């Protein structure tokens, strides 16, 4: 049963769905924060807002890494070919999601949020 949980085809879309949710939260959160309480431009990237976005990025990446590892582990133990295929491709898609989160999220380290 636990094995089936990690070889389920739903994992083919979970990683990038989480990426999408993270992406919308980043963009939406930034927009709302800049409309409601924009930090002073002279603060540069060292703002609470950037810190919050960076933290969200790291937490999301870590969660995706955990999911990816579980799928990869399950794929190695799975004997049913279709389930093995799903788990293996899903683990790759989790890795892609991590790369996407980190790559898109990286600018929060260097740019002021609302300029």
């Amino acid at each position: 049963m636990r094995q089936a949980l990690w070889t389920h085809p739903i994992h083919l879309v979970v990683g990038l769905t989480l990426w999408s949710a993270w992406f919308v939260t980043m963009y939406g959160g930034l927009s709302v924060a800049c409309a409601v309480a924009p930090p002073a431009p002279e603060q540069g990237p060292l703002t609470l807002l950037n810190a919050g976005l960076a933290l969200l990025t790291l937490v999301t990446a870590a969660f995706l890494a955990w999911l990816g590892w579980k799928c990869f582990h399950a794929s190695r133990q799975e004997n049913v070919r279709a389930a093995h295929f799903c788990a293996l491709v899903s683990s790759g898609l989790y890795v892609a999601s991590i790369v996407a989160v980190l790559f898109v999220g990286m600018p929060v380290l260097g740019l002021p949020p609302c300029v």
Partner: protein
Amino acid sequence: MTDSSRKTNPDEDTQRLVKDLETVWANPRGLGALTIVNHTTVGLRFMLTGMAFFLVGGVLAMLIRSQLAFPGQNFMAPEIYNQVVTMHGTVMMFLFAIPILEGLAIYMIPKMIGARDLVCPRLSAFGYWCYLFGGLILLSSLFMEMAPESGWFMYTPLSGKVYSPGLGSDFWLLGITFVEISALSAGVELVVSILRTRTQGMALHKMPLFAWYILAMAMMIVVGFPPLILGSVLLELERAVGMPFFDVAGGGDPILWQHLFWLFGHPEVYIIFLPGAGIVSTLIPVFAGRPIVGYGWAVFAVITTGFISFGLWVHHMFTVGMPQLAQTFFSAASMLVAVPTGIQIFLWLATLWLGKPRMQVPMLWVFGFLFVFVLGGLTGVMLALVPFNWQVHDTHFVVAHMHYVLVGGMFFPLIGGLYYWLPLFSGRMPSQTLGKWGFWLTFLGFNGTFLVMHWTGLLGMPRRVYTYGADEGWELFNLISSVSSFLMAMGIAMILADFILHFRFGKPARQNPWNADTLEWATSMPPSPYNFVSLPKVESRHPLWEQPQLPQAIAEGRYGLAAAFHGRREIWGTDPLTGKLREVIHLPTNSWWPLFAALALAVVCISLLLRWYPLAGIAVLVAAGFLLRWSWENGTHSRAAPDARDQPGNPPLHSRTMDGPGVWTMAVTLLADGAFFLSLLFGWFYLWTISPEWSMPAESPLSLTLLVVAGLALSAGWWWLERCVRRLRHRQGDGLAKGMAMITGLGIVQLALLGWVLVEAELDVTATAHDAVLMVSLVYVMLHSGLGVILTLLQGLRVGYGYVGVEAPLEPVVVRLLWRYNLGGYWVIVVSMAVLPSVIGGSV
């Protein structure tokens, strides 16, 4: 599964079987042909209609290039030029590219996955009629010289009432929304068909790559089109009624339109590209004579492309003004999407490298695709960079890039695919000579037109200008583009001539003429309406390479569902992951209802255009009546299942189960509905946060008490329905009809209370965007609740008629999904629009 009833003379048995199948799957002739729902006919209709619209779009393109060939020309007046440019883009994107690819998918998918039809044949037919009528309504505007003229993206405020007072924008908004019903219909049923109706043994990892690409495309349509439908509804409401969604003075924001449009518009590029790439992934292994390198990587790339393409929409809006940090998010995502595309290109190259490619006409188009699309992809990465994007924004550079991506990514593979599958359509081979001439003229003409256009753009020529001065330095480049475009037109004419002539003069094709590996070549050429006499069991990704005798064995009825004496149109229902048999799906047959429903909706569309609202209201009711009658003739109704008994040795009929395709179809439809709903919520929060003149009263005009009571009625109805379904699962059907009646009553209570809320709120929908959004949201909720009530009432009636019950428990499960959706959506609306404003405290 082999039919055990075949005991005596196999030839006689096969003949009888074929005769039965031909009776059950017969396509009527004459006027009756309008009732055909079979995927082969509907797919062909989509493709032929798409091709006709393509010719119209092509003529418009020639007009544009004629106008721009020389500086200072008066070939077309500015207002006519604007209409021609707008209609060229609109026709090519909405009436050609998407529908023809959907048509190809509708035609090809069941054959590739070993099915006899799509899972919702009437929905295919309905989609086609909506497409045809919507397209004709839109096109008619051109001949009446009142076509839309605000560009194919209809930016507000240019497309609003003030700057576009004629009917042009209305034609676009209503016509496109009508056409999008078609796209969504196809999207929903392609998803469900691919996931649930693959033949026995075709596990997910054995599915043809083309099906993976179409699955991704269809899911993207389901999620990507609703934002534009919402935008179109809102803009039409603004134009017709004066609700100020995009008017700053009323608390709206024109940039909201851009968000909604490009939330659809950028994924649209990939919706068009993915089927093209799917064709390439199908053709290259066949002509290289070996399996594709990295099947799993291809699946990985398809899924990644599908998702990441939704994170790019703002790169069309880099110049509207937003924080640099926000721009970098979209810039990074725009660069990132090139990675999965690159993976696919390396897989194709590796397959060619390791195989022995045969350079026949379809492969010419594949190589043309590789060259053109890679160039388009490279300029795409350039445009992802914000400073460069600012520099060339709204110039011909962008036009050139767009055509490299769209023509390279869609048109070249499409023509390659059509050449490849022509023998299947007609049983004849196309001409190699005409085909090669057609390719080279098109290829050279295309590059002459659009490669040069990059330079015109870099020299600063803006797009959508009807003429230019002789001293700008753009004359030579424009002349080269115009001359080359006519060269391209000659090439396309030659291809079309080849397509038409081959039906008469083409050499008869042998079975599987390209030595392909997929199941569509196991059908007869041209295929019969039922595709396969029997449905094969598939053991590998390349069934025809590993079992060359499979077509013959299928035709002899040696595999599954080799019986039709019961009068049902049947396909397998299989497990989405493993391809193991789960049920026998019996499909509805030819019907007038799809055509009648689409005709009624066309009347709605025209009435709204002419502002004849009473007629529009009547037509809506008539359309609803047709659709409900259509739904009535489903499940175990004798018109859907003349003999609704299980066959010994086969899995149960789907209407006897609780997880038939109807559940999946409803779930995928609600996914589209959810995308619409989330777009509406996005609009609400966007205007609340961003719109400069947004005004929100300190207290919500909606009565929270009444909303909560209405919500409790809805919740009670939902709970009761869940209980009914649980009891059905335990084969307890007593009191089912009464339960449905009670649930209907609770739904009516909710509706009445919502009506009360609406009346009491006294919303001034033309004064503020706030009140206008509340109105749209309440109407959205009430429409859903109304639908829930009607469907539940019908379920009660169907229990009485014996169509639903312990032996046929599927339909309440389907209706339950709608109630679940209504419940979730309702409480989200209440919290977002009635509770949050009170908590946060009115205007921001």
